[in-house]
C-alpha cells in the first residue's frame, strides 16, 4: 500500500514500574534500568524522529485508540505498585503522526480514534517507557492501545497502518512494544531481593523466546504467538498480541540483528529489554501458512448466524 518506512530500531521493554521507581531494590531491576539507559542513549545517537509505542497495559474497546495530546501532563500511580511511588510526567506527542495513523487505520478497515484530553490516564507501561527512553522529550512520541477483543488479523493490519503513516510522513521511527514475556506475577508480597521468575516453565519459555529474539527472528516469534499465549501468558486477554504488531510494523521477516540487553524477574513476571535492528541477512527454519492480512473486514458475525 505504501513505500517501506525507515525503521531505526525496535525495542521490546517490560511494563512494570520497578526499573523506573525502584532500580536499587533488586539487582535485576537495576540491570533492567541499565538496559533502558543503554537504549535511551542509542535512541539519542540515532536520527529517529518518532517513538511509536504499542502498550499492552493500555486496553481499549472502541477500536484502536491513539494518543494525540501534544503535551499530556499528569502524575500517574500504578494500581498494584502504588507504594513504589508516583510517576509525574510531561510528554511531547507527535499529533500529526497520530492523526495520520488514525486515517491509515480507517483506510484499512479498522475502527480507530485519537484521544486528546487533559488528564487522560496514560498507562504504566507507556509512562515507564517514555520516561526512561526519552526523558527530555527530545523525540516526539505516539502511543497506540491494545484492543481487548482484537486478534491476529486486526493486529497485523494495525501494524501495517502504523507503517503507512510513517511512510506518508517520512518519519524515522523507533518502534517500542511494552509487554512482559511470561506475565504471571506472584500473588503475594515478596522481599525484593527474592524476586525470581514465577516458575521454571515460564523461565524456560522466556529463554526460548529470547533465543529467537537474539537471532533476529521476529516473524518466527510472531508466528509462534498463539503457542506463547498458551504456555506462558495468564489469560487476561484473548491472545499474545505484541509480536504480531511488532512484526507487522517493522516488517514481517527475520532480517534483524537482535540483542537481549537484560532479562530479569519483575515480581515473578518475565521482563526483558530487547533491541532489534533491521539488517540484511535472514535466519530461520520455518515457513508459515497463516494468511497475511492487508485489510480488516470486521467480525464475521459468527454469533449471529443461525440464531433462532
Amino acid at each position: 500500500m505504501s513505500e517501506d518506512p525507515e525503521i531505526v530500531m525496535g525495542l521490546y521493554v517490560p511494563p512494570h514500574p520497578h526499573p523506573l521507581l525502584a532500580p536499587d531494590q533488586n539487582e535485576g531491576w537495576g540491570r533492567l534500568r541499565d538496559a533502558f539507559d543503554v537504549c535511551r542513549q542509542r535512541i539519542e545517537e540515532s536520527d529517529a524522529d518518532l517513538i511509536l509505542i504499542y502498550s499492552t497495559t493500555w486496553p481499549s474497546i472502541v477500536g484502536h485508540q491513539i494518543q494525540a495530546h501534544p503535551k499530556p501532563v499528569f502524575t500517574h500511580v500504578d494500581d498494584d505498585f502504588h507504594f513504589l511511588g508516583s510517576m509525574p510526567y510531561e510528554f511531547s506527542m507527535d499529533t500529526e503522526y497520530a492523526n495520520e495513523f488514525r486515517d491509515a487505520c480507517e483506510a484499512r478497515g479498522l475502527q480507530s480514534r485519537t484521544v486528546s484530553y487533559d488528564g487522560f490516564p496514560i498507562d504504566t507501561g507507556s509512562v515507564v517507557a517514555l520516561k526512561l527512553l526519552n526523558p527530555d522529550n527530545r523525540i516526539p512520541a505516539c502511543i497506540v492501545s491494545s484492543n481487548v477483543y482484537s486478534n491476529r488479523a486486526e493486529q497485523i493490519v494495525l501494524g501495517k497502518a502504523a507503517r503507512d503513516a510513517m511512510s506518508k510522513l517520512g518519519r524515522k521511527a523507533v518502534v517500542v512494544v511494552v509487554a512482559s514475556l511470561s506475565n504471571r506475577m506472584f500473588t503475594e508480597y515478596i522481599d525484593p531481593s527474592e524476586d525470581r521468575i514465577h516458575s521454571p516453565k515460564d523461565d524456560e519459555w522466556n529463554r526460548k523466546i529470547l533465543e529467537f529474539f537474539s537471532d533476529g527472528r521476529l516473524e518466527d516469534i510472531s508466528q509462534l504467538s498463539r503457542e506463547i499465549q498458551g504456555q506462558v501468558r495468564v489469560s487476561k486477554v484473548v491472545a499474545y498480541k505484541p509480536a504480531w504488531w511488532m512484526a507487522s510494523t517493522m516488517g514481517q521477516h527475520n532480517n534483524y540483528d537482535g540483542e537481549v540487553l537484560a532479562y530479569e524477574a519483575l515480581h515473578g513476571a518475565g521482563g526483558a529489554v530487547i533491541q532489534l535492528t533491521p539488517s540484511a541477512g535472514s535466519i530461520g527454519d520455518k515457513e508459515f501458512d497463516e494468511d497475511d492480512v492487508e485489510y480488516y473486514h470486521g467480525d464475521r458475525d459468527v454469533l449471529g448466524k443461525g440464531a433462532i
Partner: protein
Amino acid sequence: MKATGPSGRFSLDWSVSRVMAKGEIVLGCLAPHPPHVVYAENPEQNEPFAEGGWEALRWGYHRLARKLKTIDYDCIVTLTPHWQTYVGTHFLGLERFQNISVDPIFPNLFRFHHDIKVDVELSELMCEEAAEAGIVTKMMRNPDFRVDYGTIVSCHMMNPDWDKPVVTISSNRSTHYYSNEVMNDQATALGEAVLKAIEKSGKKVVLVASHSLSHRHFVTEAPLPEDMSREHIYNHSQYVWDMKAIDMMRKGEMRELIDILPEMIEQTMAEAEGGGLTWMMAAMGMPDYPAEIYGYQSVIGTGNAIAAWDPNETTREIVL
C-alpha cells in the same frame, strides 16, 4: 459499678451500655458503572455534554438514590473491577481524593472532577479482618492515586450529593490467574471478612457491587453515543443469561446464582468476574429474600441491571 443516673435515682451503669452497637449492612446494591449514565445526567462535575440517553438505567438509579435518602447509613463500601490488582486485595487508605477522572475507554464521555471522602478507619478495619482471614491485603496510601471510575460512577448515581464517605476495595484478578471458581471462593472469604469488620466498626454500611451483568461491548460507537436508536444488547444469548440472573435475584435465589456464576461469566464475559456480586452476597449471608429490581438496559452492548437487597423486611419493596 454504681452511679447516679440523670434522674438522680440510684441506678446501675451496665458496662454493656458503653459498648458500641454491632455494625450492620443496611443495603446491598448491584450498581453498574458505565460512564454513559453519568454523561447522560450532565452533572456539573462532568465536562462533556449529553442530550440524554439510557433512561431506563438512570431513572432506576434516581429511584434507588431516593430510597437511600430514607436509610440511616454511615458509609458506602464499593468493590470495583476498575481497580485491578494482581497482588492481593487493596483498600483506599487516605481521607480525601480530589482529582479529575478521565475514563481510559470512553474519555469522550467521562471527565469527572471529584472530591471523595474516605472512611479510612473502616477501610483499615476491613483490611485487618481480611488479612486475619488469610487474604493478601494492602492499604493504598499514595496521595497521587486516582480513584477508579467504577467507584465514581456507581457512587455518583446512588448518592449525587456525595455527602457520605466511601471505601473502595480493589478487584483481585483471581479469575485471570486461576479460574472463576477460585474467584468465587476468594470473594466469598473477602465478603465474610468485610462483614466481621463492619460488625466490629459499629457502623451502618451500604455495600456496592459495581459492575454490569453480561459484558460484551460493541467495538464501534455511534457518532452521537446517546443515540438510543443504536443501543441494544450484544446478542440474544447475553440477554437470556441476564434475564436468568435477574429472575433468580427476584426469587431470592442468591446462593444458587452465585453457584452458577462461573458458568455465566464463561458464557457472557460477565463483569461479575471481578468478584463484586459474590463478595457482596457473601457479606450479606447469601440472601434468600427477593431483590428489589430498579432497571435493566444495555450500554454499548453490555447488560446492566440495578438491584438492591434490603435486609429490613419492613422497608423492602417490589420496585419493578
